[in-house]
């Protein structure tokens, strides 16, 4: 039935709708560069969403844990075989993404008989110099984007734009880790709040009497609102942070921040979240 081109386009359209629905409950991921390297942060429930891929590569993901695992393994496999056969400096994020997993994700997305990957992926690469730091995001259909400074994964493109416009305009190159963490978590809260509002708006829409007001538009929430939101959700979830730290001795630059590290680095208003 999908042999006809029109049907195929329709099927892909349906698939997009199905996939968009899958991310509604997901937790956004924020990556930003700071003076000493790159920070990745999210607030996860249960399964971890931030991983080490190679000496200078880190992964953040949104979506189905099993799909994420599958892609994480292919990234690890490609990176290590390449690093062994050539050299560790030949393992770059953009090669892994563009020639490695992006085509695989695209193919799975377009083969309408098979299941697509329910994932959005962020690959952060620590450059030898700060100017070379790069961030790549891949969508469930295999589209990838390269960015510098900051990049995010979010439930919808709109929320992604909202988060990015909140984060942009910072002097990323001069941020300390504490400042980056504070900014990253606030950026996360922007995304998480926008997601909540979208959901509420939809519930209102579902009722025939509800008006269309109260959608995700409006002013940027204040810092207090954002911190309050993080405090509210952090009770049943965990703040997850990882850095690619240029100062780390040895070849592996990835380090996930433990609770003890976080309690020192987090802004004062959030420290109790980790301690408690």
């Amino acid at each position, binding site marked *: 039935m999908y042999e006809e081109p029109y049907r195929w386009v329709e099927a892909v359209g349906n698939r997009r709708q199905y996939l968009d629905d899958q991310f509604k409950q997901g937790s956004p991921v924020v990556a930003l560069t700071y003076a000493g390297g790159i920070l990745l942060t999210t607030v996860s429930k249960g399964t*971890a969403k931030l*991983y*080490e*891929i*190679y*000496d200078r590569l880190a992964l953040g993901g949104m979506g189905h844990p099993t799909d994420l695992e599958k892609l994480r*393994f292919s990234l*690890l*496999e490609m990176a*290590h*075989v390449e*690093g*062994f056969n050539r050299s560790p400096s030949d393992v770059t994020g953009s090669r892994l993404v563009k020639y490695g997993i992006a085509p695989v994700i695209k193919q799975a997305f377009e083969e309408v008989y098979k299941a697509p990957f329910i994932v959005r992926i962020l690959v952060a690469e620590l450059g030898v110099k700060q100017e070379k730091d790069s961030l790549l995001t891949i969508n469930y259909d295999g589209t990838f984007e390269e960015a510098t400074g900051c990049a995010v994964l979010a439930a919808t493109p709109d929320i992604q734009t909202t988060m990015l416009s909140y984060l942009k305009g910072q002097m990323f190159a001069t941020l300390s880790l504490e400042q980056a963490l504070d900014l990253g978590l606030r950026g996360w809260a922007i995304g998480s709040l926008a997601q909540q509002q979208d959901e509420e708006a939809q519930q209102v829409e579902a009722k025939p009497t509800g008006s269309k007001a109260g959608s995700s538009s409006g002013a940027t929430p204040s810092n207090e609102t954002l911190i309050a939101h993080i405090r509210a959700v952090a009770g049943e979830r965990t703040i997850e942070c990882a850095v690619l730290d240029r100062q780390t*001795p*040895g070849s*592996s630059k990835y380090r996930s921040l433990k609770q003890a590290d976080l309690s020192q680095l987090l802004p004062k208003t959030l420290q109790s979240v980790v301690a408690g």
Partner: protein
Amino acid sequence: MGMQGDFYQLLKEQGYTLGSSGQAGAGQALTNATTILAFKYRDGVLVAGDRRATAGNMVMYDRTDKVLEIDRHSVMAIAGVPATAYEMVRILEHSFKYYRRTQLQELSFDGKLRAVSKLLKENVSAALAGTGAVVPVFAGFDTEQNSAKIYFYDILGAEFEGVEYAVSGSGSPTIRGILHYLNTWGEQPLHALSQEQAMVQALRLLASAAEFDSATGGVNREASLYPVVKLITGAGVETVPDATLKPLYESQVVRYV
């Protein structure tokens, strides 16, 4: 699914083989690396090696690094054919990282030992043919048990624990005797030595090996060439800089008769 986190297996699936078991070229002098030692001292384990690589009577290279850091807490010192040894180190380095990154936990110390053993076993035919014999010493700090450990191997891959010390390479018979003597009748056993005392002993031992073994390189002060000395403690592997070895060598190793 191949989800065991075994990097070597992955390489083999891609058609990789370690070394070839080709016939040894008759009379062909292969490059060899010589004299490595490891012993436990107060804070952990010290691993050291001279810097000479020889092929028959010829000195191939005088700046060889035979004490190779595999990860934050383990070191492999190599004696034998460097070509094979370096390749093994590269495989191990990638294997341990791959395991940690896929399985989200460190490979246990025993797991690391097995990995070394496995590679040596794969290499047996090359070792027997004379083209790739490697006799390593593997030392590290087992962070789970909070203790330093030393293992040495034969070319077939059998692993032996060196309770106090281990040596390998052509200069090793000389210093093995000295280590035994020091540890048994010395002023204090090796494991009681301070960091500085341990470094001095390592320099003296390598100087003795160089005295009696032509394939072991000594200290060359004109070229400021000192042995490679690494210390492994709970905090990780630390390479002792030449700037630290130089005064120790000059004050406590050189004898002006």
